[in-house]
């Protein structure tokens, strides 16, 4: 945890509520996101218990598996989830923008928008990946040899969920986001980051009910139980409260099982099923409301200036997957090949550098963290000395002296970048020296210097003439911001990344495979008598 974050948490303790950790919203929020709150059956990897899903906060779709060990009922759940998710995907697939050709790429189309999925926490996000993995290889009723066929759209659901789950590994992406991660990015609470994983407690700190202190509101969310012993704010899942399992869910499921085996009174079965539905729904609804509450809080923040750039990359990602589906590619492999894995990793590293830079540039509070770490500095220009490069056509290389309270961690020769308001790209520069400010007689200040004097040489962004372009060199007295990190680590916005290029469009390249050959498909999971699939 950064010292800045520690300080913010301490301030939150003193204030009795969360304090800002960002001044702008760093993630795209869809106008109508799809909220998905999944619950799983304790101890069973592939057996969902239920979910609340939908784009209308007042009318969630409730999906419940009254007996998670029953294959048919589980398949019914997957079909229900597919019915809730797939039409949304389809609705965005055909609304496209044309992206003009560039030097490296033909004219192409990109979806004008993409569906966003919001889950309560990181465990739920991981569960989306698991759902994707468990459903994308299932064999459907169209396969005559399938021993336990699923409804046709289920594997497609698996492929979309897998894509969303994979995309969520890209730093700064927003196709699939976890509410706890969104909130902790924007607020610092007076509790530990571990406790922040509890959505109810986190919201308690950020937006306590009137009259309550954040700590008290959080504690209530964590521990308060109704007279029946059940938590008022159930875990946000996917794991359920063991007490709920043992005290109410297990008996209700047993009644359901009994009604079914007793044979045939449809009304009795329906009543028992309704009972399980009601119980599972009661555990889901508070979390569902919490997620929407979180969305309200986030919407109140102004969106960061570079958020749209990252969302565009998400739209590319969505478009790329749409194209792979349309091209008839097989489901994503169970494990990435070496080439694909290396590419993804490299792509994520670039994305990390990009989002770190963009967030700092969009948000003074995030920039403050970088300044504290010596990765950026801001201050006042105290002197400008015009110098020129050597060579046949000498170019302007002005030396600026900047007085800054920061201490940039930079050796002479380190590249620096100046954020120029209104300019498309950063102005390049180079650190010449960093020295503590001294008294006019040359002796150091007692108790350490209050500021450092940094000499930087501007090396670009001044036009191509011998005289720098008007306004491109700051004058003495101007306030300047420099970073030691690049502002746009690779490529401009709007280029699809290699991982998102379908093979029909020439990528991703796999060594030794002739172009146009589809990658070999993974076999479906084997079905055995004991399988829960």
């Amino acid at each position, binding site marked *: *945890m950064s*010292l*800045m974050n*520690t*300080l913010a948490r*301490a*301030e*939150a*303790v*003193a*204030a*009795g*509520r*969360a*304090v*800002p950790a960002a*001044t*702008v919203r760093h993630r795209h929020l869809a106008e109508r996101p799809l909220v998905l709150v999944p619950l799983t059956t*304790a*101890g069973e*990897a*592939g057996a969902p218990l239920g979910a609340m899903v939908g784009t209308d906060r007042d009318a969630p779709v409730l999906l419940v598996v009254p007996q998670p060990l029953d294959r048919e009922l589980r398949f019914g759940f997957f079909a229900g989830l597919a019915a809730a998710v797939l039409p949304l995907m389809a609705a965005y697939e055909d609304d496209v923008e044309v992206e003009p050709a560039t030097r490296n790429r033909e004219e192409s189309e990109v979806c004008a928008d993409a569906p966003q999925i919001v889950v309560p926490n990181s465990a739920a996000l991981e569960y989306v990946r*698991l759902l994707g*993995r*468990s459903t994308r290889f299932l064999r459907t009723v169209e396969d005559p040899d399938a021993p336990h066929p699923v409804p046709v759209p289920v594997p497609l659901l698996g492929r979309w969920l897998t894509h969303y789950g994979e995309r969520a590994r890209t730093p700064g992406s927003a196709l699939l986001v976890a509410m706890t991660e969104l909130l902790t990015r924007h607020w610092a609470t007076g*509790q*530990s980051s*571990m*406790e922040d994983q509890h959505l109810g407690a986190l919201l308690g700190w950020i937006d306590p009910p009137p009259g309550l*202190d954040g*700590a008290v509101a959080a504690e209530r969310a964590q*521990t308060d139980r109704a007279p029946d012993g059940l*938590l008022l704010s159930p875990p946000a899942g996917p794991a*359920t409260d*063991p*007490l709920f*399992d*043992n005290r109410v869910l*297990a008996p209700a499921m047993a009644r359901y099982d009994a009604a079914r085996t007793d044979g045939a009174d449809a009304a009795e079965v329906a009543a028992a099923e309704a009972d399980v539905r009601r119980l599972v729904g009661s555990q889901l609804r508070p979390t569902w409301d919490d997620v929407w509450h979180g969305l309200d809080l986030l919407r109140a*923040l*102004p*969106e*960061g*200036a570079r958020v749209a750039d990252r969302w565009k990359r998400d739209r590319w990602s969505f478009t790329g997957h749409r194209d792979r589906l349309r091209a008839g590619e097989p489901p994503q492999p169970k494990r990435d090949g070496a080439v694909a894995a290396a590419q993804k990793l490299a792509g994520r590293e670039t994305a990390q550098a990009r989002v770190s830079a963009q967030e700092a*540039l*969009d948000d*003074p*509070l995030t920039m*403050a963290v970088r*300044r*504290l770490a010596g990765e950026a500095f801001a201050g006042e220009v105290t002197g400008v000395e015009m110098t020129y490069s050597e060579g046949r056509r000498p170019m302007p290389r002005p030396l600026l002296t900047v007085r800054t*309270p920061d201490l940039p961690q930079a050796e002479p020769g380190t590249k620096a970048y100046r954020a120029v*308001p209104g300019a498309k790209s950063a102005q390049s520069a180079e650190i010449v020296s960093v020295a503590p400010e001294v008294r006019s007689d040359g002796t150091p200040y007692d*108790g*350490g210097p209050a500021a450092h004097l940094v000499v930087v040489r501007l090396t670009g962004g001044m036009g191509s003439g011998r005289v720098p372009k008007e306004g491109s060199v700051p004058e003495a007295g101007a306030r300047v911001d420099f970073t030691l990190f690049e502002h746009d680590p690779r490529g401009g916005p709007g280029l699809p990344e290699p991982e998102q290029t379908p093979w029909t469009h020439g990528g991703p390249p796999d060594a030794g495979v002739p172009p146009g050959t589809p990658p070999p498909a993974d076999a479906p*999971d084997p079905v055995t008598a*004991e*399988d*829960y*699939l």
Partner: protein
Amino acid sequence: MSTTHHHSLRKRLADLRGPGTAPRPLDARALAALAANPGCRRRALMDAAGVDKGAVAEVLGAPARFGQSRFAFSRGHAFEARVKRDGCAELLRLLGAADPGVPAEVPDLAAPGPEGRAARTRLALAEAPAGSWTLLDHPLLALEVAGSLAYLEPDAVAVAPDGRWTVVEIKSFPILDGGADAQKVGAAARQAAVYVLALDAVEPGRARPDVLLVCPRDFSNLPTAEWVDVRKQLAVTGRQLTRLTRIEDIAATLPEGTTFDLRYAADGSTPTRSRIELSQAVDAVPAAYAPECLSTCELAFHCRDRSRADGCVESLGRGLRGELGTLTTVDAVLSAAHGEAGDPADPAVAALRRAAALRAEALAAPVPGAGVPAQQAGEGAGERAGDAACR
């Protein structure tokens, strides 16, 4: 250690637990948790005394949120039975037996009381014939921890034809496409390391430092296994357990008559001990609260309340102390940051002042490109106590 000595410690621990209260056995999970927070004397003492910390937490009004779901429990049992059925044939195959068709020796370890079962286990280990497989199903191993004895029950210990011992851990989380949840594997490894330590206490070096982790494969109920190297966990846990303050030394610092007895009523299940009294007894033993306690110790909510009331920075995260140096309370951090206290030559104080200045500047600045004023920091100070209790 002399027998009388042992006897007096046992008496002291029984008094702490309360007369007529059966001790709660320490399991490997508890030992691993203990080793993860070796600085906590409160837990060390209560665990050694076999105190039911969960029940204590209830009486303190801060019950833990632990518990196991029936579903997970029955799934775990069904899977273990699946692995061990047919004379453990499947387990032999996973262990790499040359001919899993040849049944293994599965000695009967039943005996009255833990001492008896531990003795049977030692005997079975000693008598396992060379040249064939012997499988000990739920053996009981004794391990001395901080001067008091704990009994541990691994799922199985295998004796290979070459005489090496292997700890087998059977878990019901899946190995999916060759990988498993790293956190769960880590917890299983720490737990298994405790078993290896206990086997080393029987005969050093006989147990393999890699354990067999048996899990369901993918979404099925079919067992698959991975060898997990636990040498690192062994080293860490071994070192931490020896670092635990001797239980008798902790007990010796307590006021005469201190007890965690819940004074159950005649029905045997209704505690009658007063909350205040119990709380005083618990707080008489020094603790070392960190947020990790919330997932490992039943007393966490109680200890958290205390830690917060004392304003300890550790309640915000265990790692914080390193960067904060001598600033141990939230108050000290804030007054140092805001220039009201602290020595500016202290690097932690200087860094905090820089951080506070930068933070204030950023919160006052207009948002670039947005033209909207920034959020305002929360104001107002809560009531916080001094730093006496924060280490």
